[in-house]
């Protein structure tokens, strides 16, 4: 009983903030306080859910065997915890950013932010594929106004790409995959080990898996990744939370969930299509890294880096072994904290000094030392070097690749780490060693923004230390 109530609270709590935010629109301090407090409360709710363990609730049954229902399971809990932990931190950051930047329509911004988080909660705790799909779409719709926040022609154009690719893939691939699953399996309920009986032919399963892989466009598997760079027109806090954590992680989380709870990892490992998908994800990792190297715009570079890193998680899902799934789930966490730090830095540099191109960062480390130290930590975690959290996920992904016998993937992961070093670690020396721009004095972004990025950077270190506990938690999940 307790769990089902708490699950509902986790879903509704961010929505409850909406009327509060609207009512307090004339008083920015109160408005932001509501966002912040709701965020903290939501995180606490998620912690309670962690304590309580499994349970579920059916909200409404639309057709027989087709219901909107919530179910608490370790995978979703992990995602829910990450998203809800980073929401208040991002809000903290956004306060500094939005005010420092003098953005319009801030109330609308916070409202849709809250709605998006509510949808992410629903997605994390979805009890079946249909529920997951519904919240997946709500995430898309609720983040559209955030992407087009600026309202300029460029923002609208980016928003159009964003919406048409995300909705397009989900209508053309995801829906038929879902209806096909219902047609062949007779259910959409998540079950460890999958829902399909033995009589469904591998060919059908392969087709469905491909449809899912492309239909879940938020996972940004190439060639359907264009929406992510397009979404970078959004204000940086949006890019930080939504396009490094909530939205893209919703995508890869959905992929992992589908592999684990709809197909079953043993089934996926045996499908004839799986090697193809593994290589596709590998190609996505390498190609996106190569593109990232060529981006001078800092946020674009980060966006392509995200496409590449999402490839890791998708890759782990398709490798379909215990270790690889663990690596994927760990990477959801590690990449979240690492990449959000990088985006926080990008926003801070932009607000404080209006620099958005990497080539303009010469000597900026002397002007914004905290920002660039945080950046270095985040970058090291993304690359996967100790003593930062990112090392663990790469470790388990490599183990998983070995388990499944994909030697090539090992090479891909190593090369990708090298590419990461090239395009991310190019920046700290440039910032710290080159002379500072003339006339520049020591000037960081607003204190709340700096505080946010310090927290996330320190979390990257903490995740290295507590990586083992996280792994144990993931191992507690019943995957087969």
């Amino acid at each position, binding site marked *: 009983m307790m769990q089902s109530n708490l699950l509902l609270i986790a879903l509704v709590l961010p929505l409850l903030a909406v009327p509060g935010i609207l009512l307090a629109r004339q008083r920015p301090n109160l408005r932001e306080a509501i966002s912040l407090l709701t965020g903290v409360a939501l995180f606490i709710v998620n912690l309670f859910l962690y304590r309580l363990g499994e349970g579920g609730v059916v909200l*409404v049954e*639309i*057709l027989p065997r087709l219901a*909107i229902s919530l179910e608490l399971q370790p995978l979703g809990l992990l995602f829910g915890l990450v998203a809800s932990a980073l929401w208040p931190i991002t809000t903290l950051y956004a306060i500094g950013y939005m005010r420092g930047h003098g953005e319009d329509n801030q109330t609308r911004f916070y409202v849709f932010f809250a709605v998006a988080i509510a949808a992410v909660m629903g997605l994390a705790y979805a009890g079946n594929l*249909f529920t997951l*799909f*519904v919240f997946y*779409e709500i995430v898309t719709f609720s983040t559209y*106004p955030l992407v*087009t926040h600026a*309202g300029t022609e460029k923002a*609208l154009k980016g928003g*159009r790409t964003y*919406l*048409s690719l995300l*909705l*397009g893939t989900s*209508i*053309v691939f995801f*829906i*038929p995959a879902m*209806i*096909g699953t*219902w*047609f062949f399996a007779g259910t959409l309920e998540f079950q460890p080990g999958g829902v399909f009986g033995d009589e469904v032919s591998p060919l059908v399963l392969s087709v469905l898996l491909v449809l899912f892989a492309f239909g879940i466009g938020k996972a940004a598997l190439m060639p359907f990744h264009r929406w992510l760079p397009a979404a970078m027109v959004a204000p940086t806090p949006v890019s930080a939370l939504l396009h490094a954590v909530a939205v893209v992680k919703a995508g890869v989380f959905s992929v992992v969930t589908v592999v684990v709870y709809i197909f079953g990892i043993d089934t996926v490992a045996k499908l004839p299509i799986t090697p193809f998908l593994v290589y596709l994800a590998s190609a996505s990792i390498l190609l996106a890294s190569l593109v990232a190297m060529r981006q001078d715009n800092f946020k674009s570079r980060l966006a392509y880096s995200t496409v590449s890193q999402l490839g890791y998680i998708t890759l782990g899902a398709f490798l379909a072994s215990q270790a690889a799934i663990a690596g994927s789930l760990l990477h959801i966490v590690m990449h979240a904290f690492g990449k959000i730090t990088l985006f926080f830095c990008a926003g801070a540099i932009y607000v404080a000094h209006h620099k958005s191109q990497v080539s303009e960062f010469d000597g900026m480390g002397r002007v914004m030392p905290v920002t660039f130290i945080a950046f270095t930590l985040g970058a090291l975690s993304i690359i996967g070097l100790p003593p930062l959290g990112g090392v663990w996920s790469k470790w388990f992904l490599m183990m998983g690749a070995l388990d499944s016998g994909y030697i090539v993937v090992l090479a891909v992961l190593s090369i990708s780490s090298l590419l990461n070093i090239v395009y991310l670690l190019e920046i700290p020396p440039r910032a710290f060693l080159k002379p500072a721009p003339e006339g520049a004095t020591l000037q960081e972004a607003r204190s709340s923004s700096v505080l946010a990025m310090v927290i996330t950077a320190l979390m990257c270190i903490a995740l290295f230390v507590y990586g083992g506990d996280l792994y144990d938690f993931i191992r507690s999940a019943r995957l087969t």
Partner: protein
Amino acid sequence: MLNHFAVLQVVVPLLAAPACLILERARAAWLFACLACLLSLGISIVLFMQVQASGPISYALGGWDAPWGIEYRIDALSSFVLLLINLVAVAVVIAANSSLAAELPEPRHSPFYVLLLLCLAGLLGIVATGDVFNVFVFLEISSLATYALVALGRDRRALFAAYQYLIVGTIGATFFLIGIGFLYSLTGTLNMADLAQRLPGLEEKRLVAAAFGFIVIGIAMKLALFPLHGWLPDAYTHAPSMATAFLAASATKVALYLFIRMYFDVLGHEAVNALFPVGTLFLVLGSAAVLLASLAAIRQDNVKRIFALSSVGQIGYLVIGVGLSSALGLQAALLHLFNHALIKAALFIAVAAVICRVGGSRLEDFRGLGRAMPWTMGALVIGALSLIGVPLTAGFVSKWFLVLAAMEAGMWPLVALVLIGSFIALFYVWRIVEVAYFQQREAVAVGEAPLMLLIPLWVMALANLYFGIDTSLTVGGSEQAANFLMGGRP
């Protein structure tokens, strides 16, 4: 009294129409029309419950039993459709007063109600009757009323649109009549149940095929089935907004009802398909309608016309469901018949509300309305989401069944087509949303629509959500009707 309800369903609006004419004052006519429609809705509810409780109702008009007299027959399917039409009629007629005040000079108001009631009577008659010649009579009543309704439109283009519709509609009705004539000469009866019994035993298969050909083409013209849809976009665009809302939500639905009735019930889809692969033809035409009409809708810059073309596309979905010739496909068609009526009623009433305040329905007229008319645009967005088929809206349920039916038949390209159609719908709908919410409105301030428009609008919008979540009524009702039609006759 209770056993006369089958005929009262038609008689009430039919007699209310001339009574409305006597009430010259616009407001009095409106109130009276509201009353008549509510009464008619009440009758249809009673009929629906009666059919649910004790099976089909047969009523001999004037006490003359079939096959000499005219039989009125209300079964699961017809009671479902009657209820739907009456619901739409009530919503439209309540909203009509405010909308007409903005669109038409006052002297034309009471004729509008007269025509609306006549049209309603005709449509209800087509559904209620069990006699094919009687169908023709009601078809003409509703059609003539419709031509005049379209011609009431506020500019002169409405006259041409009405004229176009008149030509096509008359040809359609004539074809239908010729088809009936063939059937009568073959069997000597006009009663549907009798026809269904006598037709399978006939030797003259070619004549039956010819009769069916005439009937199908006749109905297809009324239904605006691609490629016979030419009249629809103009008629819907230039008719008074409320007439459009009513016609879009009910007239094409009744045409489809008639089609289903003739195809499955009277002629028997298996017998017909043995003569000519009609099912395949429907699939092809329906697919073409979905694709071409939806693509055409993207390029329009008048919102009314966008939705009109979208109607042509949606009719394609309905026909695909029928063409699959399976219980599941038929159920999908019936579900979409109901859900699409709700969708288009909501959308066209929303457009009417915009015209009422802004004076036009061109895309640029919608600029900034997200802020200026939040309630109207909110309902429009709900209707649009339902049109696309987003989960938790009614539109999703019907698409779900349609895709399942296509999968059951193993027609995977059709699955893709249905989904691509949804995707295109997203595009043309999104253009409106983007203009309304992300462009600023310059110059004059615009207020929210009058309450009497908002109430029916939101009833329809909420119905779209309600029937997307609680599907027991629609799915149960359509399943029952589909099984009845498929299993009723060998």
